[in-house]
């Protein structure tokens, strides 16, 4: 009887695991079959000459290039804002905060993590309305605002992973620094963070992926369909996930729908590229920590 149960549990968990590959396989196959044929110079640059388009000398219409640049900038800015803040808060929670305060802080972080992205977008939108009504009548939704709201969206992931990574180091590992007469700051930066770096970077990568794909936040905070390349922090911009949404919702011809699949493929590739970049960085960091 218990043997039968054993087999059942084993096969069930095996099937459940296999399903992951199945889903990923189907998804990729579907995207590739519909999107791959559309990948071309035209998909990226439309009628514009490539080099001039890349450097922004010629306006690109109905193509991906501005959205690629927009998404990259968006992710970069959101990361620049959120990563230092998130890691620092994580360090504070793990290494400094006293227990009652820590409980309140952790609850706030959980609350932030549970906030739907559309609410984050609404918050940004409301902020702009407030600014317009009060001391900045010129304020408008923009690349900077969208990055800020995205940063808010990914902040809790960064805080969590940093905190958990630091706290899951063995107790005795946390004590080495003090036992060698190092200050708390020296311990955190030279012993704990390097040891926890691997997991923290994992969190950063996931957070960045999340920022790259989110549509709801940017829809309310500055993305538009035909903005062209972003003109600075306070300009409107295009982004890949919004372009997918827009094409899928308002396509005029089957070809246009197919180009949405192409766009999805590009977004997937871009996220993959970000991941591998983070992975390379992680390897470098680990190598350095193991050296000196």
């Amino acid at each position: 009887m218990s043997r039968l149960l054993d087999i059942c549990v084993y096969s069930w968990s095996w099937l459940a695991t296999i399903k992951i590959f199945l889903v990923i396989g189907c998804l990729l196959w579907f995207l590739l079959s519909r999107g791959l044929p559309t990948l071309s110079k035209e998909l990226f640059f439309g009628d514009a000459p490539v080099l001039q388009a890349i450097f922004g000398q010629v306006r690109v219409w109905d193509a991906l290039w501005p959205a690629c640049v927009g998404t990259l900038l968006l992710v970069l800015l959101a990361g620049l804002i959120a990563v230092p803040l998130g890691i620092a808060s994580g360090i504070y929670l793990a290494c400094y905060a006293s227990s009652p305060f820590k409980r309140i802080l952790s609850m706030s972080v959980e609350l932030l993590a549970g906030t739907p992205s559309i609410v984050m977008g609404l918050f940004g939108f409301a902020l702009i309305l407030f600014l317009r009504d009060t001391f900045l009548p010129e304020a408008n939704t923009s690349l900077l605002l969208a990055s800020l709201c995205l940063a808010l969206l990914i902040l809790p992931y960064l805080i969590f992973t940093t905190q958990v990574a630091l706290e899951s180091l063995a107790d005795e590992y946390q004590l080495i620094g003090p036992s060698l007469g190092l200050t708390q700051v020296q311990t955190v930066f030279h012993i704990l963070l390097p040891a926890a770096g691997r997991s923290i970077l994992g969190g950063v990568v996931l957070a960045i992926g999340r920022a790259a794909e989110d549509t709801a936040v940017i829809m309310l905070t500055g993305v538009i369909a035909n903005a062209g390349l972003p003109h600075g922090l306070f300009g409107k911009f295009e982004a890949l996930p919004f372009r997918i949404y827009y094409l899928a919702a308002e396509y005029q011809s089957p070809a246009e729908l197919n180009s949405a699949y192409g766009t999805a493929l590009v977004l997937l590739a871009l996220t993959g590229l970000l991941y591998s970049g983070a992975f390379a960085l992680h390897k470098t960091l680990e190598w350095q920590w193991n050296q000196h």
Partner: protein
Amino acid sequence: MSAFKIDNPVIEVENLRFYYGDSRAIHGVDIAFPEKQVTALIGPSGCGKSTLLRCFNRMNDLIDISRVEGKVLLDGENIYDKSTDIIELRRQVGMVFQKSNPFPKSIYENVIYGLRIAGEKDKKLFEERVETSLKGAALWDEVKDRLHESALGLSGGQMQRLCIARAIAVNPKVILMDEPCSALDPKSTARVEELIGELRENFTIIIVTHNMQQAARVSDNTAFLFEGNLIEYGLTDQLFVKPQNKQTEDYITGRFG
């Protein structure tokens, strides 16, 4: 408790009480540790021996609900005074833990990492410290040809001796050892015990152990703690052969614990 005369104490503890939140874990302990001798703290699990040990370099400060009352004098200065430099204190009172925990770095780097982070840059000093510390930890002969290989390739016993080398590289006066052999096999344990005997020439050592044979083998003096009280303290030879207290006798003859 019989009065145990210590002529040249390095650490003197006066009426030390330790609290976790509201519950008291140590109830007024008075004890002194003689210079350049090995003193063992023994007692059943939860008797407060590790907690007491961690009071001597203020490691308990890192637990935010803990509180200490009473005095711990290091060379006559109360380390719980407001003016105490905790960093300096911990340099003088080093610590070795139960599980060896070397950094994932080279053997050389492990020994001097503490100094390096603290801002020391002198290469000559590093080389000298690596040699003296590893010799002090009886590890030099085994690793001198592979100083720049990863410390994680060492055996468990070697790693623990490396951690001892790391602790003595900072040049402490006192070394606290919290069950340093409990994760080691008998052969490595014997090697570390032998080392403790050698370290006695230069350092004052206080070792917590649940292994009474070990206490009997390595220490000059032994203190028996039970439920947060110091029950008996004396020369190891006397305490194990002719304990003065009934509880001590029961414990060392294996009637409880």
